C-alpha cells in the first residue's frame, strides 16, 4: 500500500480471524484492527472526515482554533490532522487519562485543558461547551457531527462488506455511537438481517459517583433503533478478554476491544452459525502504564477501573 501523505494512509484496516477465541467452530469470529491506523485508533477516520467536511463547508479557517472534548483517541487523531494541515488544536480531556495520551497529544503539538476526572468524558464535554462560547473556537463535536458516522458508513462499513460479505453480526464499543451507527447502517443495506451489538463499559464508582441520573448524556448522533442488543461489560471481564486476545491470538489491543470481544463471545454462545465482526478500536500501547497485561488480574482490574479506559 502506497500513500502520498499520512492522511491518505487512514483506513483500509485488516480484518483478521480470531477463531481460537470463538466458543464454537461453527461461529467464526473476526477482528477489525483499527489500531493499524496512523495514530493507532479508529478515530483517525472521523478526525480527517470532520476537519475536511468543515473545510469544505467554509466553517473552518486558519484563524480559528480547533477545540474538542475527548477521552483521548479523538484528540490524538485530531492532533495529527491539525498538525498536517496547520491548525492550532486544544483538547479537553479528563485528568485521569493515561500518561501515554498526554504524551501523544504533546508530541503533535496539541494544547491540553484538563477537566475533572471524576466527571469522566461528560465533564470534558461541559468544559468544552463553556469555552466554545468564544467564537474563535471551532468545535468538531464528534458526539453530534454527522461526519463521524458518515466516515464509518463510507469507510469501515464498506470495508467489512468488501472483505466479509457473509457477515451476520457486528459488535463495537459505544462511545459516541458513530461506529455503531455508520457501520450498522452500511451493513444493513448489504443485508437487513445483520445484527448490530454494542458493548458499554461499566466504569468505576468514581466516574459515576458525583453525577445525578438527570445528568446522563446521550450523544445526538446516537439512534437507539440501529442497535439490536447492548451489553454492559465490567473492567475485569474486559481485561480478561484483552489478555486472551494477546495470549491466544497475538492481537495487542486496547481495553475497549476486550469489552467488545467479551460481548461478542456472549452473543456467539447462543448462535449455531455466524460470522461475527469485532471492531477493535485501538492498539494496546496507550494502556501499558496500567499494567493491564502484567499485574495480578485482580489488581490490574482494580487499577483499570479507576482510570479512564473508554
Amino acid at each position: 500500500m502506497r500513500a502520498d501523505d499520512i492522511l491518505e494512509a487512514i483506513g483500509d484496516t485488516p480484518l483478521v480471524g480470531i477463531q481460537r477465541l470463538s466458543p464454537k467452530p461453527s461461529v467464526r469470529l473476526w477482528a477489525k484492527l483499527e489500531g493499524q491506523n496512523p495514530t493507532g485508533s479508529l478515530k483517525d477516520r472521523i478526525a480527517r472526515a470532520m476537519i475536511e467536511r468543515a473545510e469544505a463547508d467554509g466553517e473552518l479557517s486558519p484563524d480559528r482554533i480547533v477545540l474538542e472534548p475527548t477521552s483521548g483517541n479523538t484528540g490524538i487523531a485530531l492532533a495529527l490532522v491539525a498538525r498536517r494541515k496547520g491548525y492550532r488544536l486544544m483538547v479537553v480531556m479528563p485528568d485521569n487519562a493515561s500518561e501515554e495520551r498526554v504524551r501523544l497529544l504533546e508530541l503533535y503539538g496539541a494544547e491540553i485543558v484538563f477537566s475533572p476526572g471524576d466527571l469522566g468524558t461528560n465533564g470534558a464535554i461541559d468544559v468544552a461547551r463553556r469555552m466554545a462560547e468564544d467564537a474563535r473556537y471551532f468545535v468538531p463535536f464528534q458526539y453530534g457531527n454527522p461526519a463521524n458516522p458518515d466516515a464509518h458508513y463510507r469507510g469501515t462499513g464498506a470495508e467489512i462488506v468488501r472483505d466479509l460479505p457473509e457477515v451476520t453480526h457486528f459488535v463495537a464499543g459505544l462511545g459516541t455511537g458513530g461506529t455503531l451507527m455508520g457501520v450498522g447502517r452500511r451493513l444493513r443495506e448489504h443485508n437487513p438481517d445483520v445484527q448490530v451489538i454494542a458493548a458499554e463499559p461499566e466504569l468505576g464508582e468514581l466516574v459515576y459517583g458525583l453525577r445525578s441520573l438527570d445528568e446522563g448524556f446521550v450523544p445526538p448522533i446516537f439512534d437507539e433503533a440501529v442497535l439490536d442488543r447492548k451489553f454492559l461489560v465490567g473492567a475485569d471481564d474486559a481485561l480478561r478478554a484483552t489478555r486472551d486476545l494477546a495470549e491466544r491470538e497475538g492481537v495487542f489491543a486496547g481495553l475497549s476491544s476486550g469489552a467488545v470481544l467479551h460481548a461478542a463471545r456472549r452473543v456467539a454462545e447462543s448462535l449455531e452459525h455466524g460470522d461475527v465482526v469485532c471492531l477493535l478500536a485501538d492498539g494496546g500501547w496507550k494502556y501499558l502504564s496500567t499494567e493491564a497485561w502484567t499485574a495480578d488480574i485482580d489488581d490490574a482490574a482494580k487499577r483499570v477501573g479507576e482510570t479512564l479506559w473508554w
Partner: protein
Amino acid sequence: MSVQVRLPTIMRSATAGEATVRGDGGTLREVLDDLESRYPGLTRSVVTEDGGLHRFVNVYVNQEDVRYLGALETELTDGDVVSILPAVAGG
C-alpha cells in the same frame, strides 16, 4: 421472584447507603414498584411520570440493556441482577 438491584452512588441516599438491595416482582416494572414502596423516592429519576424509562438512565438485567429486551416489562427470574447507571459517553 427475588432479584438483586445494584444502585449507583447517587441513589443510595434513599437506601441508607446500601449499594445493592433485594427486589421482588416478575417484571422490571414490578421490581421498581416494590422498591419505590419500600424506599420512597428511589425510582423517581429512573421511571418517568408517564411510566417510561428515563432517557438518560440505563437499566441492565444480567448486564444486558433492557431497552433491547422488554424495557420495563422485561421478565425477571430468581437470582437475576439488575443494574441502574447513568448514560455516559466515550471517545
